[in-house]
């Protein structure tokens, strides 16, 4: 008996049904990809298998592992199983490790809890570190001394310490750069094949699944709507939801190039350095060049993409462009006017920004009306302020009556629309979109991209579109800048860069990006 199966799993929290008749079959040495948007119940499925559900949950159905039903075990017996037979990797490697324990101790802990000695634990930890490709990292390092990708490797080592039969990975690469993501996915695939464990891989990203999983299950509102072997599923796509998800993932908003030859934003030799702490009391403080000698031009009506991995300096550059932080060298001009932290309000009013996090970008204590009116601080309140707010809401597809609600009354996608409305309110020339669609579900993301393309066409806006997501950048930009370690390494027309990347870093980025299979008929 080597069956690993989830059978007719039903879950309700309080009165709300979360999962309905979820049945999944996993094979040893294979990966089952579970795909769905936020709220589809994919993470809850994982937690139900681990029996780590929030209080007030009622589960029915069976989780069979080698002929034994996990849902029937007592908590004490289940504790014995967790880590040994079923184990899990989480999304956020930054918070999944204890910051005050060395990585070696954390890996060894799993072994010790399940009856191993400390020495065995340490020895096993050393093996595992080598297994996940971290042989060069000593066991006495603390999590903060490792990069995000290295931390996720440690989490994987932790999870496979006792050769579990079932490994659950809940969005394990979502928080990582594309290049790191590709490496982690390779590692997972290799471990699953070699150790003969079954893996449940949970993600929102169809492209990741298509390249990784042997089987795919698509989940919508607590129901598995379609499942089957990966190639077959993508070839047929029988359920309309699967097709919708697929279409949304590769959505290209209809747009044409509206760029005019006049430059709007010119960045010349921009350099931004941070002071580092002194290494000892009398040493001169070091400096970190986050952005070094960056130059580019953004034309009127153009949509310019800025791509790069985390820590490449794109956020720092954004803050300098928005005039929030001073430059240490070079200059940034908007229509020949110099951008500095002390620039005039009228100049500042010509630039607005949309941030990534639809939950963090509003003061939770203000109503939408007050949130939208905030940029009027720059221009003074116009007499027709109420109709301006109503117009802004209408133009992003919301209702003028929404102005009296609080932000928490809206979904993530709606909040991002509010953020766009706030950016539009002063009728700016340039909107900086800082990872503006990265936190959204694919279907919502497609709608927001459509909205952005439509607004650009109607209002003649210029966009500076900052993202790590190459698919999105490809869909919405005319030209792309590729940034690595504070420098622009490649610049060119979007189509051209994607078709024929010249620089090694761009090539690596594109090669690492997960790709969707070609659309089936």
């Amino acid at each position, binding site marked *: 008996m080597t069956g690993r199966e989830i059978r007719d799993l039903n879950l309700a929290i309080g009165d709300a049904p979360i999962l309905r008749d979820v049945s999944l079959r996993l094979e040893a040495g294979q990966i089952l990809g579970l795909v769905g948007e936020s709220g589809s119940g994919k993470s809850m499925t994982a937690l139900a298998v681990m029996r780590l559900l929030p209080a007030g949950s009622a589960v029915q159905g069976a989780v069979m592992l080698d002929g034994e039903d996990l849902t029937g075990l007592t908590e004490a017996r289940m504790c014995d199983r967790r880590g040994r037979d079923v184990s899990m990797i989480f999304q956020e490697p930054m918070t999944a490790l204890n910051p005050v324990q060395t990585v070696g101790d954390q890996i060894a802990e799993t072994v010790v809890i399940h009856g191993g000695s400390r020495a065995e634990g340490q020895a096993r930890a050393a093996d595992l570190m080598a297994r996940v490709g971290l042989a060069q990292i000593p066991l006495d390092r603390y999590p903060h001394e490792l990069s995000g990708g290295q931390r996720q490797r440690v989490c994987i080592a932790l999870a496979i310490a006792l050769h579990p039969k079932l490994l659950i990975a809940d969005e394990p690469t979502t928080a990582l750069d594309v290049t790191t993501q590709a490496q982690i996915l390779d590692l997972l695939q290799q471990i699953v094949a070699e150790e003969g464990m079954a893996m449940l891989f949970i993600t929102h990203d169809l492209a990741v699944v298509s390249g990784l999983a042997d089987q795919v299950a698509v989940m919508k509102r607590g129901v598995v709507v379609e499942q089957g072997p990966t190639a077959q599923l993508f070839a047929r796509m029988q359920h309309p939801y699967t097709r919708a998800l697929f279409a949304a993932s590769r959505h290209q908003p209809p747009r044409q190039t509206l760029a005019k030859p006049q430059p709007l934003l010119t960045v010349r030799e921009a350099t931004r350095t941070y002071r580092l702490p002194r290494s000892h009391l009398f040493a001169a403080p070091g400096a970190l060049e986050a952005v070094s000698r960056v130059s580019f031009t953004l034309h009127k009506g153009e949509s310019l993409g800025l791509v790069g991995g985390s820590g490449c300096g794109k956020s720092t550059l954004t803050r300098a462009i928005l005039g929030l932080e001073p430059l240490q060298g070079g200059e940034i001009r908007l229509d020949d006017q110099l951008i500095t932290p002390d620039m005039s309000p009228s100049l500042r009013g010509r630039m607005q*920004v949309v941030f990534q996090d639809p939950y963090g970008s509003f*003061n939770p204590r203000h109503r939408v009306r007050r949130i939208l009116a905030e940029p009027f601080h720059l221009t003074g309140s116009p007499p027709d302020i109420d109709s301006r707010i109503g117009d802004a809401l209408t133009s992003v597809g919301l209702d003028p009556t929404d102005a009296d609600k609080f932000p928490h009354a809206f979904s993530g996608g709606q909040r991002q629309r509010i953020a766009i409305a706030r950016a539009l309110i002063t009728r700016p020339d340039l909107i900086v979109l800082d990872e503006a669609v990265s936190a959204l579900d694919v279907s919502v993301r497609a709608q927001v991209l459509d909205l952005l393309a439509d607004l650009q066409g109607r209002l003649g806006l210029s966009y500076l579109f900052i993202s790590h997501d190459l698919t999105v950048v490809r869909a919405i930009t005319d030209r792309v800048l590729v940034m690595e370690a504070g420098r622009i390494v490649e610049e060119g027309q979007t189509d051209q860069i994607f078709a024929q990347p010249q620089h090694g870093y761009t090539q690596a980025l594109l090669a690492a990006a997960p790709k969707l299979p070609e659309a089936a008929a």
Partner: protein
Amino acid sequence: MQLWLGAALTLSVVFAAALSFLWTPYDVTQLAIAAKLQPPGPDYLLGTDHLGRDMVSMLMVGARTSIAVALVAVGIGILLGVPLGLWAAATRGSLVDEIVMRGNDVIYAFPSLVIAILITAVFGPSAVNAIIAIGIFNIPVFARVARGAALSLWTREFILAARVAGKRGARISVEHILPNITNLLIVQGTIQFSLGILAEAGLSYVGLGTQPPTPSWGRMLADAQTFFYGTPRVAVLPGLTIVLMVLGLNLMGDGLRDALDPRLRRSVQ
């Protein structure tokens, strides 16, 4: 539960204090040596002290003094400490931040009650000087709470959005930061309030706070010392009142902390 018990205890003392402005069973400035140290009975509900003053009336007026001193002292702490903390957070890393916070460290470095005794000893014992002495030591407490909470808010995107809208540090602090840290300030305020009551009682006990004939809980304790073996009641009653008031405030503070904890609120994730 905690919150309601705490609020009930606190409010009953506050009510007694408020009532004392309109009515007390007896006049507390009226001495009646003949009726000294009377046991509790129908005439005097909780008996009388060594000068024949009614204990109930004394405790009621004493509550008034304690609350007034502690409230004004906390007020001083909030009015000076919170703006300093917000200012330090708005200019984080700058010289202003350093000066404000190191100044706070200096105040923190002295044992508060000892300095309060010094201040009242130099400027003369009085309720006003007690208020000032206790108030000064509340400033760094609020400054630190405000700065710490504000610092984490300053990294949030809605603050960045406000900066893009051209708002300056002062305006952002008032419009965006302050409303989001009121929870913390209310909770801290309750705790400082109870510490203020204790401090006032302590100062009055050593004779440096409220001066006779104005009754105060600490003063009552000091007066009762001589008679403690014969009639423990005269010391136990004010002592118990102080304990209940401080307990009530602490329970209320804890309860408020749980009820207002931003981590439990979805809207402020």
